[in-house]
């Protein structure tokens, strides 16, 4: 029989097996479905995927939070008007607001009213003080277009000319510090993530090779009864892909449950002062879609890696037992 004909038969066998598997009419798998090494491998994969998925979630959380800080702060600037003798605060605030609104790059401007100003100062001064008698600076909040921000130097000059007591604060120092810190946190997170992923990859490779060593005899028997290398590799690849998928899904789904529970817990505790502080820093503490997509990608990578490692191990073992030269061996 020619080589092409044999390959056709192999392909036909693959189609027939797939058809039978879909019909639920299965023979005993050539690679035994469950043994101690297989269960240990699944457990190791589940644990490593769980840890890697948690890291993916943490990096995603930090990255999203950093982006939100940057956006929130750079979307808004404040103009402070200090009280001074002879200054009509109401007119000055309105003048400042008008100048701001006329500047290109500004989307809106609003005066922070007396009550809101009092509330801002309450944590420091208490609520038993009559703020009307105190020389409290007032604020104009200006929303800017972060895509094409206004010329701050020009705006500052305009304000100085019209209302000398007005002071523009574009939060630039804050923004640059926060952004630098947030980027550093993301970089550290990515570094830790890469370490965890490398550790996961190595663990999966070594655990798969360990589990494979118990199946050497099967590889040899299949080989000497005339199975093609591609057939043997495919049988092992399918078996280990299944083990990898089970382990990775268990680890990944557990990590997603943890994300969800932590998110739900911080939502329900929002009224407490501690949770309020956490919310101020991390927002709602929920993992965005990028975190969940990252975990899904991780699952596929881990399962694929398990299958690939088994294929490479089988192929290498076959090369070792296939027509070896005693001198080379």
């Amino acid at each position: 029989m020619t080589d092409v004909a044999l390959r056709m038969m192999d392909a036909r066998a693959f189609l027939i097996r797939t058809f039978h598997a879909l019909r639920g009419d299965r023979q005993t798998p050539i690679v035994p479905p469950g043994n101690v090494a297989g269960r240990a491998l699944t457990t190791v994969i589940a644990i490593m995927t769980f840890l890697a998925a948690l890291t993916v979630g943490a990096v995603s959380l930090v990255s999203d939070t950093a982006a939100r800080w940057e956006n929130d702060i750079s979307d808004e600037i404040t103009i402070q008007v200090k009280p001074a003798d002879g200054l009509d605060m109401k007119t000055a605030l309105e003048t400042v607001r008008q100048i701001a609104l006329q500047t290109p790059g500004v989307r809106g401007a609003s005066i922070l009213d007396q009550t809101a100003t009092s509330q801002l100062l309450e944590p420091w001064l208490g609520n038993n003080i009559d703020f009307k008698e105190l020389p409290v600076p007032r604020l104009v909040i200006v929303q800017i277009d972060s895509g094409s921000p206004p010329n701050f130097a020009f705006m500052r000059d305009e304000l100085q000319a019209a209302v000398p007591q007005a002071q523009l604060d574009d939060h630039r120092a804050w923004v640059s510090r926060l952004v630098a810190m947030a980027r550093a946190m993301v970089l550290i997170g990515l570094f830790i993530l890469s370490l965890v992923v490398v550790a996961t990859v190595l663990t999966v490779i070594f655990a798969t090779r360990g589990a494979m060593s118990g199946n050497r005899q099967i590889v040899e028997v299949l080989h000497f009864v005339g199975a093609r290398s591609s057939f043997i590799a495919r049988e092992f690849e399918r078996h280990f892909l299944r083990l990898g998928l089970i382990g990775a899904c268990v680890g990944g789904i557990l990590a997603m449950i943890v994300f969800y529970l932590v998110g739900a817990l911080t939502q329900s505790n929002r009224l407490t002062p501690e949770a309020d502080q956490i919310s101020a820093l991390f927002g709602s503490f929920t993992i965005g879609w990028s975190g969940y997509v990252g975990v899904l990608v991780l699952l596929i990578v881990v399962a694929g890696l398990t299958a690939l490692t088994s294929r490479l191990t089988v192929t290498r073992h076959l090369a070792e037992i296939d027509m070896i030269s005693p001198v080379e061996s």
Partner: protein
Amino acid sequence: MIRFENVGLRYDMGPEVLRDLTFEIRRQSFQFLTGPSGAGKTSLLRMLFLALRPTRGLITVLGKDVATLSRKDLPSIRRRIGVVFQDFRLLDHMTTYENVALPLRVRGKEEHEYRQDVIDLIKWVGLGERLHALPIVLSGGEKQRAAIARALIDQPDILLADEPTGNVDAPLARRLLRLFLELNRSGTAVVIATHDLGLMDQVDARRLILSDGRLEIYD
């Protein structure tokens, strides 16, 4: 079918364990391969079923020079050679039926095509009652017969058996020998590696005797 010309084999840089082997396994022939322990019978068998490449000389299997064969050519040749290993090499998670059917399964045949043939062969080797038993519950002799059935299931052109009667009592050994002779009459060339003189004396067959790495042939 298989031809050796001045074949030599050495492991690493050691001395030659097999020297100047020149012989032929003819179509439908029956022969014993014998010699003292450590004479190189298993090494010679490994060269016969393409698991070992010689360090010198020419081996032709089924008309092909093995030195020029690539790895992808080997399965199609191995499918025409049946091998019975000394340690049986049955798969422990499969029943007798599944072990015997394995060569047909890896060739891509559908179960309904071969089911009856496998059952008939298992009955022929006397394991009809052990069809669905796992190897762990089979005796040494039963494993031996299951291994023989697996080697025969696809009607190979050549059958190579390494000490096939090593684990069985004398009556069963005679029965297995009759089985090999019957197979040979149906057209398969048979090579039985053994040091059981009693077994060899029962048949007037060609003997390949390995001694000190050299081969003597008694036709």
